[in-house]
C-alpha cells in the first residue's frame, strides 16, 4: 500500500512538472519509471504512468496561458491569442480550462467505464484504419491552411515542416528519408522556441507592459463557458480514439469549432484532456498502444514480462475484489479531482509568477529559457552545437515571419506530424494504388 501511495503522489508531482516544463515531452514522465520497473508492482507502474500521462496534458495549459511558453504541443494553436489577455483574464482562463479539462476528462472516463462494463470495447479497433487516420490528418492540414490569412504561404510552410520532420520509414525513397537528416538535432521544442516563443518575446520587449500595475484583488471569475467545455470534451473523446498525436488533432479541431478566442481556448483544452483519457481505450481493451506515451508503458510491461491487455482484467494485487482496470478508473478519478484543485487553488501563485516575470522580464525569461533548452538537450540526446545552430536559424526565420505578419503555426504542425503523415500516405498508396 505504501508503494502504491508513493507511486500516486510522485506520479502527480512529475505529471505537474512535466506539464509545466515545455522542454519535456509528455512521454518523458513514464520513462522515469523504466529503471525501477523490475522492482515495482504492475499496479504502481500503472498508477504512476496514469498520473503523469494525465497531468502532463493538464498543466501544459497553465504554462501556455501564463507565460506563453507551451507546456505541450497542443497549446500552440491558441498561443497567439494569449498576448491580448490581461492577467485577470489569463487567471480566469486557467480556471475555466481546468474545469473544461475536468469536464472533458469526465466525459471520456464515463465512456471508458460504460464500455468496460458493457464489454463492447473491442469495436474500437475499427477506428484505427489507415483511411480514417489519413482522413483525419487531411482535415487537420486543411483546417490549418484555410484558417490562415495567406493560404498559399500556409501550405508552403506546412509542406516545409513535413519535409524537415524526422522520417523513420526505411521504405521511403532515399531523397525523402534524407530530408529529415538535416534536422535530426533539432527538437520539436526548438522549433516552437525559434518560430514562436522568441519572436513573440522580442516583440514583447518593444511594448510597454500592461500587466504590471494590475491589481490582483480585482480578479473576478467570469461566467463558466460550459458549452465550449462540453463541445471540446465530446470532440476530444471521439478523436482520442484515433492513433497518433490525437490530443493535438482534437485540440485543433475543437479550437476551430468555436469563434470567440476565450471559447476557442477552453474548447481546445477540454478536447485535449478528454482525448488523453479516451486514447486509453484501445490500449487497455485491446492491448494496442496508439500514442508514444502508451508505447513507453507497453515497453515497460514487456520488460516485466507482462502481456497487455490481459493483465488489465485480472484482479488487482492490492485489493483482489477489483480488477486492475477498476483500479485505473479510481486513479483517473483521483487525478482529475486533484489536478482540478491544484489548477484552481493556486491562482495567486500563478499570478505572482507572471507579475514577477514581467517585472524582471529579461532576466527571468532568459533564465527560464536557458533552463528549458538545457533540459531539452539532455532529454532529447542531441549534439549541442548542431542544436544551437538549428535554433538560431529557426529564430531568424521566426523573426522574419513575424515581421511579415505570417503565422508560423503550419510549419510547426508539419514538423510534428511529418513522420506520421509520410507513414500513413505510403501505407494508403500501398493498400490502394499498388
Amino acid at each position, binding site marked *: 500500500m505504501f508503494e502504491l501511495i508513493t507511486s500516486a503522489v510522485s506520479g502527480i508531482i512529475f505529471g505537474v512538472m512535466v506539464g509545466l516544463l515545455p522542454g519535456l515531452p509528455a512521454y518523458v514522465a513514464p520513462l522515469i519509471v523504466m*529503471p525501477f520497473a523490475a522492482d515495482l508492482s504492475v499496479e504502481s507502474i500503472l498508477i504512476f504512468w496514469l498520473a503523469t500521462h494525465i497531468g502532463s496534458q493538464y498543466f501544459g495549459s497553465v504554462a501556455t496561458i501564463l507565460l506563453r511558453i507551451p507546456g505541450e504541443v497542443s497549446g500552440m494553436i491558441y498561443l497567439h491569442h494569449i498576448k491580448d489577455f490581461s492577467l485577470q483574464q489569463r487567471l480566469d482562463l486557467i480556471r475555466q480550462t481546468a474545469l473544461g479539462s475536468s469536464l472533458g476528462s469526465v466525459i471520456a472516463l464515463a465512456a471508458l467505464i460504460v464500455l468496460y462494463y458493457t464489454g463492447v470495447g473491442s469495436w474500437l479497433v475499427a477506428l484505427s484504419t489507415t483511411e480514417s487516420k489519413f482522413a483525419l490528418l487531411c482535415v487537420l492540414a486543411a483546417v490549418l491552411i484555410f484558417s490562415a490569412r495567406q493560404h498559399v504561404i500556409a501550405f508552403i510552410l506546412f509542406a516545409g515542416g513535413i519535409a524537415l520532420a524526422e522520417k523513420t*520509414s526505411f521504405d521511403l525513397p532515399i531523397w525523402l528519408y534524407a530530408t529529415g537528416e538535416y534536422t535530426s538535432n533539432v527538437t520539436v521544442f526548438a522549433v516552437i522556441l525559434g518560430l514562436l516563443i522568441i519572436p513573440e518575446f522580442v516583440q514583447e520587449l518593444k511594448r510597454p507592459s500592461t500587466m504590471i500595475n494590475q491589481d490582483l484583488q480585482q480578479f473576478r471569475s467570469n461566467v463558466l463557458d460550459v458549452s465550449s467545455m462540453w463541445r471540446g470534451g465530446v470532440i476530444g473523446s471521439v478523436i482520442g480514439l484515433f492513433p497518433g498525436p490525437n490530443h493535438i488533432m482534437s485540440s485543433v479541431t475543437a479550437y476551430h469549432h468555436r469563434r470567440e478566442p476565450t471559447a476557442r481556448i477552453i474548447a481546445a483544452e477540454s478536447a485535449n484532456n478528454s482525448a488523453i483519457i479516451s486514447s486509453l481505450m484501445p490500449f487497455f481493451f485491446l492491448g494496442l498502444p496508439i500514442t508514444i506515451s502508451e508505447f513507453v508503458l507497453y515497453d515497460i510491461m514487456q520488460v516485466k514480462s507482462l502481456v497487455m491487455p490481459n493483465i488489465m482484467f485480472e484482479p488487482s494485487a492490492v485489493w483482489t475484489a477489483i480488477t486492475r482496470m477498476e483500479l485505473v478508473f479510481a486513479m483517473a478519478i483521483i487525478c482529475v479531482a486533484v489536478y482540478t484543485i491544484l489548477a484552481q487553488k493556486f491562482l495567486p501563485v500563478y499570478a505572482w509568477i507572471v507579475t514577477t516575470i514581467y517585472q524582471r522580464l529579461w532576466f527571468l525569461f532568459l533564465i527560464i529559457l536557458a533552463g528549458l533548452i538545457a533540459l531539452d538537450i539532455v532529454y532529447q540526446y542531441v549534439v549541442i552545437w548542431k542544436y544551437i545552430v538549428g535554433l538560431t536559424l529557426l529564430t531568424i526565420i521566426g523573426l522574419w515571419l513575424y515581421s511579415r505578419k505570417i503565422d508560423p503555426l503550419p510549419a510547426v504542425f508539419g514538423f510534428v506530424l511529418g513522420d506520421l503523415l509520410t507513414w500513413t500516405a505510403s501505407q494508403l498508396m500501398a493498400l490502394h494504388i499498388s
Partner: protein
Amino acid sequence: MRYLVSLFVCMLFAVPALASEIKLMWIGSPQSGPPMVVLNALRDNIAGPSTVVSHKDCREQVRYIEREDDIVYMVVNMTMIQHSLQGQQCLPKFQPQHVIGSFVSAWHLCRRPGTPDMQPGQRWTFGAPNGMPGRGIVSRLNQYNNLDGVFVPVLSSSQVATMIINGDLDWGMVNPGMSEPLMQKGQLECPYTFLPQGTDMVPADRLLSRNFRLDTTVDQVATWLVIAKTQDPAQRKRIEDAVYSDSFRAWLRQYHFSDLRLSPGIDGAALLKNWRSDMTGMEQQLYR
C-alpha cells in the same frame, strides 16, 4: 571554508570514479521499441553502475562509441542493411575479439481468423515492421509461388497486429511476444513462422520456407551482435557476466529470441564472419 574546498576537491576526484559506469547503446534508429527493451533487460543484469545512452543520429552514435570506453552495444544485421541502403554509415569499427555474443529474433506470419489462404490470382496485402525484409519476402512469394501479394510498410509489430485486426492487412509479420497473446485471445491466427526452431504455439514445421518456395540461401531472422568496447578486463568481466547470465538468457528465451550463441568462450571471429556473410546475402537476396 577549508572544509568546502576539501569537499569540492573530493567531488572532482569522485567524478572519474563514477564515470567508470558501463554504458549501453543500441545502434540504429529509431531509438525506441524492442531494441530498447532488450537493452534495458541487459542493464538489469549488470552488476554496479550502468546507464543506457541514446543518440537520435546514428553518426553520433558511432562517434560516441569511438570516443568513449566501457561500452556494451548491440547491432542488428537488418537495421544495418537498411541504414546502408539509405546511405548512412552506422556500423562502428570493431575487432572480432570485441564480439561477445549473438542471438536472433524472428516473427510469426499472422492473419485475422477467417482470412483465406494466399491463392494464385487473388490480391492480398502483407505488412512487415520497419526495417524487416518484407518487400523481398513478398516479391519471392509472388515470383516462386505465382501469388499476388502487395507489400505495405508498417512501423512496428504492434501496428502490424492492429492493421491485421482492423482489416487493413490480410497478412503480417508480428513478433511472437506480441502475436501469441493475441492468438490466445482469438484475435490473430499465425499459421506460419520465420523462427527456425518454432515455438509451442507455432512449431518448426510451420516454417514459411518449408511451406512455400522462397529460394533464398539466408534465413529471414534478425541477428543481433553484442559487442563490448573496454580496455579494462574487470569491466569486460562485468559485461560478460551480465550477457551470459542465466536471467538474461531466460528473458531472451521468454520473448522467443534464440540464445544459442550466447555463452562463455564463444568464438567472436566466427560469429562476426557469419554475421557479415549473412548480411551480404540478405542484402543481395531480400533487400535489392
